[in-house]
């Protein structure tokens, strides 16, 4: 038997297990009554998250999404699929699973936007009038820009291309997995254009090198990039340089992949001094990336910036089109200096929601996006650096003093592996 004090101690122990915090969620403002017709081009991360938030903020609005894809892709997971850590199905769900009741989905591709007449035409011939338009179709991977390359090569002859989707990411692991066992020369590229998640080429390099090291494979790992630095944020670039030196990873800077000869396993790079050929045993291809054609053809793109890429001309702080105030752009297609990532989307969506709802009410929105994005930069299986930054190349750690941004930590890996997809899904539902 124990005395009363021990009994209380034990009871307290039990209470701890069932304890829950009592914090209340911030109250939602009353829905705004409106008959506005809102068209959202794209039901990816940005379009879906915005639709879920708008149905809660607006009463009576007619919200229509246009997206031809039946599958929703959790793109941050592709790096894990391409290294054999997750199956292809890990990133795939149904587009319709995430959409709220009361919105329409047109499963078609957009052919053109007429911003003067305020209409959107689909390839199927449907024409929709809008009062407000949100352009969030994502981007296009321009695989044809690399001579000799086509997607049916992925997984064979030592070629990987993880950006191309879940099946290609799985095939990428077939090729990369062989390299991690047999070794040889591995070349990891990135394009000269703006791209989705600029950390992903680095993650793939670090992960494949780490797995090959665990297998004891003799290898030469080369990171080839058209840019002059390893990462857009100087302090992170310097840290990556140190890590590359530590891991024995070589670099080929100012080198753009322009051609592949799969039979000969030879890649051609354009460098400052001309063309340079390199033999490889494994080549990871990330093609140039551009806005969908309709963005440029409809006159929504910047005329003097990224002219070969066609990103939408928007205010970098509120994502509103600079010439057509009833148009917003979100996610990859937005012509802003940084961040084609899901983390950017998570921060952009509430800002667009704020400005859109305020505009419907005839007011000015106050939301302000300062370029926040984040990248759990995986440096090996089991460790990552939680890098967060903004337009100004400042680090903006969410957990200062607890999770150091430039330390390789297990907790940052745990976040990527366990919590990131969950947070992403909660974002899709408009709950995070």
């Amino acid at each position, binding site marked *: *038997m*124990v005395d009363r004090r*021990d*009994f209380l101690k*034990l*009871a307290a*122990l*039990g*209470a*701890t*297990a*069932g304890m829950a*915090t*009592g*914090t*209340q*969620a*911030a109250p939602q403002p009353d829905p705004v009554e409106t008959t506005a017709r809102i068209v959202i081009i794209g039901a990816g991360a940005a379009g879906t998250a915005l639709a879920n938030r708008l149905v809660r903020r607006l009463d009576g609005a007619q919200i229509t999404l246009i997206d031809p894809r039946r599958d929703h892709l959790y793109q941050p997971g592709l790096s894990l699929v391409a290294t054999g*850590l997750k199956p292809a199905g890990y990133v795939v769900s149904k587009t319709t699973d995430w959409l709220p009741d009361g919105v329409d989905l047109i499963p078609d591709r957009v052919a053109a936007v007429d911003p003067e007449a305020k209409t959107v035409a689909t390839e199927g011939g449907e024409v929709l009038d809008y009062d407000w338009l949100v352009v969030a179709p994502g981007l296009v991977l321009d695989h044809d820009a690399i001579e000799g390359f086509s997607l049916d090569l992925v997984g064979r002859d030592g070629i990987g291309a993880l950006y191309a989707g879940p099946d290609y990411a799985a095939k990428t692991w077939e090729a990369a997995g062989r390299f991690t066992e047999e070794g040889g020369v591995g070349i990891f590229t990135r394009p000269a254009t703006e791209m989705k998640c600029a950390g992903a080429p680095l993650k793939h390099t670090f992960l494949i090198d780490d797995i090959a090291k665990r297998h004891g494979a003799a290898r030469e790992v080369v990171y080839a990039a058209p840019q002059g630095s390893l990462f857009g944020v100087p302090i992170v670039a310097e840290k990556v340089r140190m890590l590359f030196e530590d891991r024995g990873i070589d670099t080929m800077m100012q080198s753009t992949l322009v051609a592949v000869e799969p039979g000969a396993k030879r890649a051609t790079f354009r460098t400052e001094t001309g063309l340079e050929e390199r033999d490889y045993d494994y080549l990871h291809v990330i093609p140039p990336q551009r806005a969908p054609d309709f963005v440029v053809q409809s006159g929504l793109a910047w005329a003097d910036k990224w002219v070969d890429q066609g990103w939408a001309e928007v205010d970098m702080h509120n994502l509103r089109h600079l010439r057509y105030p009833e148009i917003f752009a979100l996610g990859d297609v937005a012509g802003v200096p940084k961040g084609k990532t899901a983390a950017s989307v*998570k*921060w952009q969506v*509430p800002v667009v929601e704020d400005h859109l709802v305020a505009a419907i009410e005839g007011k000015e929105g106050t939301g302000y996006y300062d370029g926040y994005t984040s990248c759990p930069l995986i440096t*090996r*299986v*089991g*460790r990552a650096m939680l890098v967060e930054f903004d337009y100004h190349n400042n680090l903006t750690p*969410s957990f200062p003093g*607890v*999770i*150091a941004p430039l*330390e*390789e*930590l*297990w*907790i940052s*890996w*745990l976040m990527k*592996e*366990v*919590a990131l*997809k*969950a*947070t992403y*899904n*909660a974002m899709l*539902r408009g*709950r*995070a």
Partner: protein
Amino acid sequence: MKDMTFSTLIAVFEEIFGRGLFWAMVAVAAVVTLAYLYVLIRDRAVSWRKFLLAQLSMPVGAVAAVIFVQAVTHSGFEDIGGPIDVIVLLAVAVVGAIGMAILVYTAQSLLTGRRSAE
């Protein structure tokens, strides 16, 4: 992280485990906790013998929790990179230990009934 509220946290946990499994786990945790409180109140005392066994099971729970987390996240002890990682590891172990102790104590009490508690 933007707008980290309690409801965000719940939403994230629902997504990690799936809504059904998450609330099932919450329910199981609640039932075990209630059962634990029930036997404490029913017996109006803590049995040292049962508490001893519960304590002995704590290291098992701690190790099991750590191995479970490492297994599902493809990681190991060599990935500990800084102080926060040690804290997370210890937190996982502590949660495992306490959970196991409560479970073992409650299970013993419920299985053996009140009399043998003396």
